[in-house]
């Protein structure tokens, strides 16, 4: 069945350091989306990538979609304490989303 793997599971960084989380799907995806979930909150949509090799930026966040549309990454430059939360990728195939296991980011001030 469809699987989306995400690493690392946890990441602790000092404020100002960079952070990257990676997603890998067992099958080709029609698109991939990224979500952020704050502690006690619900997932909030960040961005969607559709095209092979696509790169999108949102301020300090850079999102990439692999050429084969099976992997993706989220990179945060110069983390801030407001970046704390769990980041999930979600691969979409046949109108269904398959969520990665999430990367929990902790930022120490």
């Amino acid at each position, binding site marked *: *069945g469809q699987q989306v793997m995400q690493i690392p599971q946890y990441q602790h960084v000092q404020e100002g350091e960079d952070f990257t989380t990676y997603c890998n799907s067992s099958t080709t995806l029609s698109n991939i*989306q990224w979500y952020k979930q704050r502690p006690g909150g*619900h997932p909030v949509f960040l961005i*969607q990538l559709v095209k092979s090799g696509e790169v999108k930026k949102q301020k300090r966040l850079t999102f990439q979609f692999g050429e084969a549309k099976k992997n993706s990454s989220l990179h945060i430059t110069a983390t801030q304490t407001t970046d704390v939360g769990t980041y*999930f990728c979600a691969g979409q195939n046949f109108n269904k*989303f398959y*969520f990665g296991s*999430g990367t929990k980011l902790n930022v120490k001030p």
Partner: protein
Amino acid sequence: SAVISQKPSRDICQRGTSLTIQCQVDSQVTMMFWYRQQPGQSLTLIATANQGSEATYESGFVIDKFPISRPNLTFSTLTVSNMSPEDSSIYLCSVEERTAEAFFGQGTRLTVV
């Protein structure tokens, strides 16, 4: 973006009972989904709620345990039946807009004792 109202926000239930969770959207949406998120875990898709027909369940989830209704394009319910402590989790409804963005309700935090 769609605004989703989900209730109850939390509940503590006795084992063997059932709880129905409601999801109301402020606009008509084609796709509605129900997810379960166990503490510290990722989201697992339970089923796709289809308007006017039976829900489509993912592997490991069955209609008898998680009956779903979708009477129209703005509303759905998920019932967790004959609950056991293993059903303690957060249940989230989600809708997909034309842009393929998914929006989530606030979630229902269920504790079964």
